[in-house]
């Protein structure tokens, strides 16, 4: 720390070069912050707090296959299962297909199972007693300016009414929030009563899309899933049960290998950054050879010359990197507000900052080490005579 002004002076020696290099570092870390935020959002979706103690039972045949309603009581009797709800994907459209949001028909006890949702108890009661009652997340209500008591019309895509009409109407009886800050995505969903849905739909009555179970403890997940799947083994409606987290993770991995894409882009970015910053450091040391020789003459050890140059390189990368990450924080905040759930992004928080800082220091060392060694090994007499 004693020599901070020396390091700082070295950076200021050629201001334009330092600023240009920092701008490149800034751009690289801005990109890192943004991309890692997307990657983290995808990775976290499979590790949610509420998703660890919830199980999902679907038809083993595949997506969109229905299961008989009669399974509910049999699943309830599996030890370790505390509540069983059932759901049908509705896939309705509000006004325009572009307004896409998830909407599902759910059993009356759904909110006892779905931990991620925080619905006031009195609204749960109204939901259970209103025939065409529906609840929506706070984000969705805000987007379409809905308030309790509003009628919400949806156009069915999968489930027509008995008379063949696609027009379904619901009454908004509750607005819920996400229980955990990391699971805000659910605030874009709409849930309505399965009973109303089942009575009115044209076909497949008495069948459900999937079961959602709450289990006493996440440790029992694998035992419970085996027990549930055993109920319908060798029947014509075999099931596949997994934790809600495993289900989400598998669903997202089928969308795209986000981790691989982000890693590939960042590898290209940091490779070019190392080359660029390394070149700057090499130039900086080359120019200062006589000065370094003077430092050595007045008694600076090889070690301290080495650390001076390394410190300069690390400082260069860290300043640019920190500004880039701060910018990424702002950009991600802005994008999240503007895009909503179109592109999942996590807040640029502790873990992203942590890996960014580690990267900055490592890159600083990598680009600094060759010029630093050159400075260390330089012979005073040769350097001073300009050889």
């Amino acid at each position: 720390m004693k020599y901070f002004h020396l390091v700082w002076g070295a950076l200021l020696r050629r201001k334009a070069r330092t600023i240009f290099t920092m701008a490149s570092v800034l751009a690289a870390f801005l990109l890192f912050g943004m991309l890692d935020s997307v990657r983290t959002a995808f990775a976290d979706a499979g590790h949610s707090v509420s998703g660890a103690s919830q199980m999902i039972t679907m038809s083993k045949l595949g997506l969109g296959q229905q299961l008989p309603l009669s399974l509910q009581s049999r699943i309830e009797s599996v030890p370790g299962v505390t509540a069983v709800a059932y759901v049908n994907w509705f896939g309705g459209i509000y006004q325009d297909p572009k307004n896409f949001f998830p909407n599902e028909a759910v059993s009356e006890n759904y909110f006892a199972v779905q931990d991620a949702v925080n619905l006031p108890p009195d609204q749960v009661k109204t939901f259970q007693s209103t025939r065409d009652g529906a609840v929506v997340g706070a984000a969705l209500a805000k987007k379409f300016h809905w308030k309790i008591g509003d009628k919400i019309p949806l156009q069915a895509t999968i489930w027509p009414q008995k008379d063949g009409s696609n027009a379904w109407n619901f009454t908004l009886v509750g607005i819920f929030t996400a229980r955990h800050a990391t699971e805000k995505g659910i605030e874009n969903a709409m849930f309505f009563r399965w009973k109303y849905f089942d009575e009115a739909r044209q076909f497949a009555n008495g069948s459900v899309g999937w079961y959602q179970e709450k289990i006493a403890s996440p440790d029992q997940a694998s035992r419970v899933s085996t027990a549930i799947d055993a109920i319908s083994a060798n029947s014509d409606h075999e099931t596949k049960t997994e934790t809600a987290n495993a289900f989400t993770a598998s669903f997202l991995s089928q969308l795209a290998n986000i981790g691989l894409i982000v890693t590939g882009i960042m590898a290209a970015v940091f490779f070019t950054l190392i080359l660029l910053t390394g070149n700057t450091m090499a130039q900086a040391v080359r120019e200062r050879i006589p000065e370094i020789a003077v430092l050595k003459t007045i008694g600076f050890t090889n070690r301290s010359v080495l650390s001076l140059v390394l410190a300069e390189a690390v400082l260069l990368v860290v300043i640019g990197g920190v500004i880039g990450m701060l910018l990424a924080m702002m950009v991600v905040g802005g994008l999240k507000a503007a895009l909503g759930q179109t592109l999942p992004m996590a807040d640029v928080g502790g873990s992203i900052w942590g890996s960014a800082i580690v990267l900055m220091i490592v890159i600083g060392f990598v680009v600094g080490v060759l010029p630093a060694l050159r400075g260390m090994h330089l012979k005073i007499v040769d350097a001073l005579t300009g050889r």
Partner: protein
Amino acid sequence: MKRFLRGLLLIVVLVIVLALWSALPWYGAAIAAILLVLWLALTRAGRRTLNVTGVGLATLPARWGASSVIVIGIAGVVGVLVALLAMGEGLQATLQGTGSADTAIVLRGGSQAESSSVLLHADTVLIAQAAGIARDAQGHAIASPELLLAANLPKKNGQDANLSVRGVGPEAWAVRPNLHIIAGRKFKPGTLELDVGKGVMGQFEGMTMGSKVKLGNQLWTVVGEFDSGDAFNSEIWADMQTIGPVYHRGSSASSVTVKLTSPSAFAQFKAALAANPQLKVDAETTHKYFADQSGGINKLIRYLGTTIAIIMGIGAVFGALNSMYAAVATRSREIATLRAVGFRGTPVVVSVLLETMLLALAGGVLGAFIAWAIFGHYTASTSAGGGFSFTQMIFQFRVTPALVWNGIKWALAIGFIGGLFPAVRAARLPVTTALREL
């Protein structure tokens, strides 16, 4: 004040040039390049520029570190841009290449996608009676009721994924003349046999000719592989009458695809369906149906790819600026000498710009080549391709000439920005001080 105005002017020129450049088609750039070559070869100022540039290029090896920063930096931008856009392009090409103008697909009214549509057996019979449908040699309407299902099967990476299973009848082959069996044979109706799309063969575990695949609690045998060069390569096909009951769908269908007598018969066909009070269906040409499904995702990829490339490009511009300012600084005595013996500013400015843009061009070509070498024949899959079916769409990245050209345009633009300011600096070097500099 004067300096500020000059800087402002430079930035305005830069913005105009970049705007023109981004809109320039390839032949426009070719004409510009030819004009530049003619100017270099035929005019006095041009020949002088060539001389100065020659000196600059000759000293390149002496500063290979700084020059490689430009080349590699720009190669990185172009490589990432081309690879990302090639992904969007591949996905879009697969969907837009699917379907034709003389076949139409009929779905239940309001259902948007095949995966959410349900047509009862009676509906499919009525649809096949509509006007405008072509007939085969025996006089039967060429209409193919099909049942689209999703099966949960393990991929080669060990994870389960949703795969489209299409239950079809004999007419399915007739409405898709571009779909051919490339190995084995068609399944026999009424048996547990499957034909597998070419894309699925490579991506899913245990999908080989003769192997058994478990759908429901039955084992199905793979007896053939087909290739259509489009979205159907991501499907497996089975007999609709056999697979329907396994999936508890009875005799219902998801869609009916019909061969029209001609593309212009579509209006007649659609009107005939709308006029039938017993039917509540939507009809679309298959070409439009599949093209509509690709719109959103390719736009998103293009938007993301461009954003990432802009940020990387900014980083590369500063790298180029650094290198070229350093280059101008080391050559300041030489440039000042040229100015002292009577060279005007233009050859100096153009030569520094030319040098940067040549390095940028090398970077652009290198980046596009790397993207092509890695992703030119890369096969990927996504569940975001086909509306809301959430089944796997297998597609190949497409590094098209248009994308490569786009990448090279980016490279030259970055080179231009990175070279312009150092070039102007070089031309404005005060001759006397520069000559005195050691």
